[in-house]
């Protein structure tokens, strides 16, 4: 395969289809504002919870041994292989009794099912790539776990963190049936707005909702990039003097850290 051929094929099949959703007119629909707000809040909450729970679990799966952790790994990956939507029929009745149905929190919990297994997989791979020796080394350098995360583990796991946010955002945005069922139309995510429009009679309205559906992951990813670059800049400034700027570029890449 010639590189140019591959490149043009990829551009033609992957990039060109996106031209159709570039907004041509800009109308501001107040309904969409509410929906976008709820969606962004929900994504922020689901992502945060994924990071918190998934980070710890991914580390455990990567660094612990024994039968128990293998069993836990299997249990955690179950939603990847099982019909989550169908299982949620059963959950829904219970959610009503617990007062979780039609609630932000209820949807938040159910959205963990299709997202958390991916998160944990990404973190497990990230920690495995980092390696046990590296972890031990970092503990020697910085015993305080919060400081350690801020100065060392966080920046080094940057690509895992970024992938998790992206994947969680994209999966959560796609859920129509789950959100309609558990959120009961009260928790209004974009999918709830877009889906009826796709089977509706107005292509313009459908496109308007799709723009958000596709733009949000890019926006969120961009915000995350900004956060990371200021994080890294802050870490550098705080560690100033210990590293000379010429080497900084490499230090936070996985290979560069083995300097000591």
């Amino acid at each position: 395969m010639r590189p140019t051929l591959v490149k043009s094929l990829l551009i033609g099949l992957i990039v060109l289809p996106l031209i159709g959703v570039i907004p041509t007119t800009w109308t501001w629909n107040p309904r969409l504002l509410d929906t976008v707000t709820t969606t962004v809040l929900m994504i922020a909450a689901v992502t945060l919870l994924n990071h918190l729970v998934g980070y710890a679990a991914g580390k455990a799966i990567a660094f612990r041994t024994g039968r128990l952790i293998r069993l836990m790994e299997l249990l955690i990956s179950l939603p990847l292989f099982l019909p989550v939507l169908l299982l949620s029929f059963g959950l829904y009745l219970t959610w009503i009794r617990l007062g979780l149905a039609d609630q932000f929190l209820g949807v938040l919990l159910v959205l963990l099912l299709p997202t958390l297994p991916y998160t944990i997989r990404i973190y497990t791979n990230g920690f495995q790539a980092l390696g046990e020796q590296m972890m031990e080394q970092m503990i020697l350098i910085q015993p305080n776990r919060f400081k350690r995360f801020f100065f060392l583990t966080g920046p080094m796991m940057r690509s895992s963190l970024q992938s998790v946010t992206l994947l969680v955002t994209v999966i959560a945005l796609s859920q129509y049936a789950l959100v309609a069922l558990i959120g009961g139309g009260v928790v209004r995510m974009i999918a709830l707005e877009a889906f009826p429009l796709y089977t509706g009679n107005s292509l313009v309205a459908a496109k308007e909702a799709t723009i958000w559906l596709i733009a949000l992951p890019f926006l969120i990813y961009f915000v995350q990039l900004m956060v990371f670059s200021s994080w890294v800049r802050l870490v550098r400034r705080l560690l100033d003097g210990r590293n000379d700027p010429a080497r900084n570029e490499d230090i936070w890449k996985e290979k560069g850290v083995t300097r000591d």
Partner: protein
Amino acid sequence: MWRGNAWPATLLIAGMVVYGLFVSLSMTTWNDYSRLASDAVFLESIGISLYVALSSTVLSVLVGAILADYFARRTGFTEQLLALPLFIPHLGAAYLSILYLSDLPVIGPHEANHLSIILTYLYKEVPFVFFYLLPVYRRLDHRYEELGLMLGLSRMRRFWHGKGVFLLFPVLEAAFIVFAFTLFAYEVPALLGVTYPKMIGVYAFDLYTQGDLSSQPAAFAISVVLTVSLLVVLLTFTRFVRPLTERISKGRAE
């Protein structure tokens, strides 16, 4: 404590899965299952779902693996293009299909061959498989194949000992994830599928929501049957394939 803690994740996920399964089970009687076994509409729905899921899986794993093999040997910006579909929610990909394929014959939406659904999945899953396998391909040690060449092994055996054993488990895993997802998904087939037969996710959701209460046990029964059968496949998979690949690839690990 630095070794992490998998308890919260396990409790959350296993709790919801097991409990959801338990409630579904408690909503059904034995009759619902025997009726399901002879329900032609259900069986045809399973048939079409298997067709769509299998073709989507085989094609996306094949293309994804070829691309991973190709890009593992070079660096550059081009592979980043493949990340683009990862940013698009499935619902958005379905919209793109409606937008571009609607006026086309054969591959348009709502055709019995379901090509539009398969194409939508390919758009999303090929990049998924690609990025799932790329690190594996990059970690492959080419000296194994060179060794095979020196020992005068056949092409097939060279591939198997140099690459196959290391790829087997990740490829199967990626395939399994794509397969289960495409088999049960609701949104894409609901928007692009045909009137009859419906794919299983859509069929079960319709049974659950449409009409009177009488069809609800059937929806729960479908949920239980599918969950249990996938669970069996999964357990067989982890029980046999994993120890096998681990045994073979031992010595490679650091």
